[in-house]
């Protein structure tokens, strides 16, 4: 099992923040922000020393919960400061990006990091369509086309034009090409039938997140079936599972800590917007319709003492097939750095060495 630390840039708000997404930018405190960014490097030096294989960053907007709206900038910052750890960019939100620009930036980053880059391409969470005025009903199609264009831009040796449905370019010829050939290890992220099929067709990895093992396992099973249909078998590390983990000295301690967690996402959308966008954002798990996640807290699927967690990881391997765990350690998204460091320490010393061979 490979293990990845999900770095969100922990922002310690000096005063209470408005509870709604988008969070008013006037509430930003620059000293707290500077500390959050500085803290990334200090924390990741420790994460690297503990033996984590990867650090992951993701793209979210208009909130202090995940302070990396431009994850490529974060990744470049990490690449320059840390020498060994692999940087997993999970990932650019494809439908609201210029795919050619994404291909260029990722290729550049792979060169800067001398091949220490892993890429996840995704559609993005429901609220993100508001960020750049993206029609949520077009998000799926724009994602598929954008991903296809990124792969083509990385691999096509001659200048070309692209006559798409949502994107059109007459001249594409990216420099630099990726350091890793033909391109960095890449995952299509998401549980949808479309993402699984895209990954299988292009021999990419599949990344799922947060849901219970049985639920996300439906998607990874479908992905493996599709890979077989395309005549190949994915390696274990081509299945990635991002999850919340709450590790404590005992199972009772862990459950007690969980009970203290809010069951709502920290910054929810206004109800009217949430209800309207949910009717426009169609989501599925391997073709089975599911409701978009808009305001609920994400489940914690690894919880308990180190012994319990080791068993859960074993079960995850069996049910989900995951060869990479991308972990958000409790408390997720909070600025409680002492609690985070306790989790990190306990996980790194009491769990990590025992799940390597799973």
């Amino acid at each position, binding site marked *: 099992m490979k293990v990845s630390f999900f770095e969100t840039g922990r922002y310690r708000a000096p005063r209470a923040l408005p509870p709604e997404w988008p969070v008013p930018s006037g509430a930003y405190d620059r000293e707290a922000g500077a500390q959050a960014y500085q803290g990334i490097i200090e924390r990741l030096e420790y994460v690297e020393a503990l033996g984590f294989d990867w650090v992951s960053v993701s793209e979210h907007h208009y909130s202090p919960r995940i302070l990396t709206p431009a994850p490529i900038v974060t990744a470049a910052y990490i690449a320059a400061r840390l020498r060994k750890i692999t940087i997993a960019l999970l990932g650019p939100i494809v439908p609201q990006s210029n795919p050619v620009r994404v291909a260029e930036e990722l290729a550049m980053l792979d060169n800067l990091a001398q091949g220490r880059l892993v890429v996840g391409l995704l559609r993005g969470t429901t609220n993100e369509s508001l960020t750049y005025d993206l029609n949520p009903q077009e998000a799926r199609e724009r994602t598929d086309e954008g991903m*296809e*264009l990124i792969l083509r831009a990385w691999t096509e040796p001659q*200048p*070309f*034009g*692209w*006559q798409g*449905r949502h994107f059109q370019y*007459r001249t594409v010829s990216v420099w630099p090409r990726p350091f890793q050939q033909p391109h960095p290890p890449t995952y299509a992220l998401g549980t949808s039938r479309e993402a699984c099929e895209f990954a299988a067709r292009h021999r990419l990895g599949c990344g799922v997140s947060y849901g219970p093992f049985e639920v996300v396992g439906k998607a990874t099973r479908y992905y493996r079936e599709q890979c077989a249909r395309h005549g190949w078998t994915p390696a274990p590390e081509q299945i990635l599972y991002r999850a919340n983990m709450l590790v404590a000295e005992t199972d009772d301690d862990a459950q007690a800590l969980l009970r203290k967690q809010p069951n709502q996402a920290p910054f929810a959308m206004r109800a009217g917007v949430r209800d309207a966008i949910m009717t426009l954002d169609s989501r599925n798990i391997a073709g089975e319709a599911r409701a978009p996640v808009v305001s609920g807290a994400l489940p914690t699927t690894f919880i308990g003492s180190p012994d319990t967690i080791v068993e859960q990881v074993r079960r995850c391997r069996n049910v989900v097939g995951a060869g990479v765990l991308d972990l958000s350690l409790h408390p997720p998204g909070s600025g409680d750095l002492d609690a985070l460091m306790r989790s990190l320490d306990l996980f790194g010393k009491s769990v990590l060495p025992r799940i390597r061979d799973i």
Partner: protein
Amino acid sequence: MRDEGIPTVAQTAFREGFVEVDGFRIRYMEAGQGAPLVHLHGAGGPRVTPAHDLLARHFRVVAFEMPGFGQSPENTRTRSMPELASTMAQAVARLGLDTFNLLGTSFGGKTALWLALQAPSQVLALVLEAPAAIRQEGAESPSGSPEEITKRLYAHPERLGTIPLPDPVLRAKSQPLVQRLRGPDRDTDLERRLPSLVTPTLVLFGTLDRVISPAMGRVYKELMPGCQLVFVYDAGHAISTERPEAFAEVVEDFLERHDAFVISRTETVIHP
């Protein structure tokens, strides 16, 4: 096949005509006004599609039926692709077209390349739709039942309306000619001439072409650095049938502006 979905048959009235040249009586379908655009079809024979409708709004479209294909009698005489190209050049001349744009599809893409090499001063610009002139090693023409052929030709046959299925009798008639003329996967006689081709050329491949690998596009760029290569997203081998609007837009733009078609004219002002 379903009747609903993307139409596959032209709606414009194309008028039929014939020219007699080189011992053949050659049928053509014609519509539209403007600069002439001559179309040479693929190995499946001629079919007038919605892409022809769109092109006929800006061009005088002349879609030929090459001897031995479609309704014409079996052609046992033509021995080579350059010979077929010469016959088709004569057919165009008989229509009084001194200069013209030339579109070649798949098998007809190779005919069109030879024609442009033989008559460079007459061909204003060349468009090659999924050309079969340079093929991956071991490339096979679509064969089998009409349904199997359909699966090879289209990325998403389920999205299309009624697809006129290839007629097995007509295919059987033209197959010996196709086999005789298609040449090797890498035709050195043709490829050594391509660097000298000065005609503005656009090469189009569908990203899901299951007959000729879209990776062949880069070989055209290597041999003819001045040519333009464009991938049509989510289209199979029959690009113009699967994505007629996308196909017609890029073809029209290229025929109008040649290399300058790389300069965008898309306006982005939302509220002036």
